[in-house]
């Protein structure tokens, strides 16, 4: 699986993501600088976590308007796969590729801790090696992960299987509606999630729960 990692100034989890993609997915990754206007030949585009442009204005808002994003939208429109994690999710929401908004955490504090995620849709490119209902331990690390969307859209997301991950067992760390941790678009080829599966893939991390997600990419 050819994978392009997008690098905006201020993103800081790109090395974590590259490590997970290369070690678990066996993906060949290349980094694409934000000022580029086209993507290299790639199957998957990943926007990792961090603080693009320092979260100034609004998380992801400035990155969403940078030159490379047009190419990413085209890639997705052609059915290409896109994964946004944490700030990457916020950027996808800001471009309108995914619905809703990520507001400041309900308790207004940055939170870094382990949560339990339940897989809600096992038919996506990031969950195909898992089963709906599976639960995994996964860390979060964010200040603005409180997912919000209008009621009508929420109904559609829920009804169409666009909720990919939910916080389970009362571990919702940020006040997200319906415990939503990750969603996809209607076609299922664009996924965004707040938690960091790339930090839960080897014994050192305490558990290897999130390996199947990256194995799904290889499948």
């Amino acid at each position, binding site marked *: 699986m050819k994978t392009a990692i997008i690098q905006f100034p*201020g993103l800081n989890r790109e090395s974590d993501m590259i490590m997970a993609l290369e070690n678990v997915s066996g993906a060949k990754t290349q980094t694409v600088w934000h000022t580029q206007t086209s993507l290299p030949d790639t199957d998957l585009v990943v926007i990792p976590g961090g603080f693009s442009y320092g979260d100034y204005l609004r998380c992801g808002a400035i990155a969403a308007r940078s030159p490379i994003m047009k190419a990413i939208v085209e890639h997705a429109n052609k059915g290409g796969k896109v994964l946004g994690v944490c700030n990457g999710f916020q950027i996808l929401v800001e471009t309108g590729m995914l619905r809703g908004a990520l507001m400041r955490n309900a308790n207004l504090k940055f939170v870094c801790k382990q949560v339990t995620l339940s897989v809600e849709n096992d038919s996506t490119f990031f969950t195909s090696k898992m089963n709906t209902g599976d639960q995994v331990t996964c860390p979060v690390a964010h200040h603005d992960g409180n997912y919000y969307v209008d009621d009508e859209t929420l109904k559609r997301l829920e009804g169409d299987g666009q909720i990919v991950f939910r916080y389970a067992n009362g571990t919702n760390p940020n006040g997200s509606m319906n415990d939503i941790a990750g969603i996809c678009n209607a076609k299922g080829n664009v996924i965004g999630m707040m938690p960091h599966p790339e930090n839960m893939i080897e014994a*050192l991390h305490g558990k290897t729960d999130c390996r199947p997600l990256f194995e799904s990419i290889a499948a």
Partner: protein
Amino acid sequence: MSAHLPNDIKITDEMVAEHGLKPDEYQRILDLIGREPTFTELGIFSAMWNEHCSYKSSKLWLKTLPTESECVLIGPGENAGAVDIGDNQAIIFKMESHNHPSFIEPYQGAATGVGGILRDVFTMGARPIAALNSLFFGAPDYDKNKHLISGVVAGVGGYGNCFGVPTVGGSVNFHKRYEGNNLTNAMAIGLADADKIFLSPAKGVGRPVVYLGAKTGRDGIHGASMASAEFADDADEKRPTVQVGDPFTEKCLLEACLELMQTGAVIAIQDMGAAGLTCSAVEMGASGGLGVRLDLNKVPCREERMTAYEMMLSESQERMLMVLDPAKEKIAEAIFIKWGLDFAIVGETTDDMRFSIWHNGDEVANLPIKELGDEAPEYDRPWIEPTPQAPVTDMQAPTDLTQAVLQVVGSPDNCSKRWVWEQYDQLIQSNTAQVPGGDAAVVRINGTNKAIASCADVTPRYVEADPFEGGKQAVAECWRNLTAVGADPLAITDNLNFGNPERPEIMGTFVMAIKGIGEACRALNFPVVSGNVSLYNETNGKAILPTPTIGGVGLLPNLDDMATLAFKNDGDAIILIGGHGTHMGQSSYLRDTQGREEGPPPPVDLEKEKTNGDFVRNLIRSGDTTAVHDISDGGLVLALSDMALAGNIGAKIEVPRDEEAFVTLFAEDQARYVLTCSPDKVTQIIRNAESAGVPATKIGTVTSTALIIQGHATISLNMLKSAHEDWLPNYMAQA
């Protein structure tokens, strides 16, 4: 004071005093330059000669600390210290305080403290791989406490999280004596190639001096002078002297600097920290035996019509000064433009050993560059040895042992600091092997199976009661914490926070603490490679507790041999290393259950520390231990409680009959550890300990869902957990 004074005005006694210079210090300036300084020059002298930059009260004593060992690559004097960890890799680290700013403006004060220490580390070519912080706040009932705690914690997190360094350890303590003077001590650890460490001495005449990073504004002017004076009630008026941090720019600056260093363009580099452009330029020139000429019209400014005086004293953050290879100027410029940062050639190196500053076509300062640093005043301040504390004679057993244990486990100092560290990204970079809550934090060296252990320790009430033993104890505890995870302790950074050194009793505490630190460092082969001194931590004449925070770094050659403190298996035997304790002076027990801070602190036998610690480390590496924890604050019972809560499994413990149970449980004697092993290893471990001259006793078994102290108390894990975990979140939630 107006910043728009013309440069050729007469310097008055008032102006000298406002610049924090004593009359005899001003006379020293007159003698040195043979004329009256210009206003800009006066500013430069005040920046170079204040306590914060010149170490004028502490230098004499700092020189007595050991700074060398087989692993030390770079000792004190550079931006940070460096130790060798093999395979051509070096660990670069330092701790620094940002105390005064954190009281005046907690979020920015703490944030820029983190930013400053990260910059010290990456200036030397190291990518930061871990951050720690030790925070000290007033007593829980202090009315500004929650404001300060929320602000400082959010500031530390806000900067480190955005910058992208895992914040993996530290400490939080409370005491009345920090009211009005809370302390923020931030430590950063970076990884560099041992043969590619970048230093500050400039080399070569006529080379470009380049300004990099963020623009210069009026923030932080006189920051270093502010940090060199006591507070009175007007502390709020000093808010404009606090800098504002921009971690996004710093992250870009990190990437740009590391990218530039790869090209071989960097000849010398110095970050602009305290006293900004002044200190960094003088340091680069003086240490390289060269003069520096600056043209301030080239300095990128954020605000209009800044004067030379303001530019030379600004402490705007996220700025660097470099001497570049002229042949690679264009490459360097391209890298900085790519990262959206300012790049400006602001001057050149010269051979006249002068610090020459030009602005609007006029020379506004021309000073001897070497003497600016070298001729700074140095004082042998009078000091008196503190009086020793009388032993505690009327020790009372608790009426309810369970309650006493819960009080100690859940006291403000001893309780879980989860509320704090969950606001820090502990995981970024994917190498975190131990998050806060253990003895030491552990991060893997990426791409290897080696790891770095780190911790920050001091017990200020011990130092207050006996600065010499307290200084020893801070170093010993740090060494013990590194040992308890299985690491070889390598070196320390010291962050010495004290009151006004002009008072002989404060100076006495400082001197004795340094003597204690030095003795422990020598005995444990644990040298000081970097550090920072913060004096004048006083408000209205009331000093903080003496707080020499010790940040330590150790190496785990093989991560497979790392120990953690959590109990693992039902049936494991619990072994006490170092014998049962008897010392109750200055104990948590006395403080938390009886409100008494009395007696001498536990004495530190450094010989025992070494013998017991080496034994424990070898045992960890033999693979025979299943959990290890050191004993410190709160004694044996707090150690057991920590281990039980971390593993979510209890223990059955026997205490010797001939001692008072509460003394055995709460004594804070040093050089001790609790470890667990499978039952079939007990005999062998105890036999090996005996032959090594290390006291080792089986005291119980891992089992059940309670801490059972046989014949005395049964305390459920749920009770321990709520005592330990609930205090801080409940406290912070109260309006």
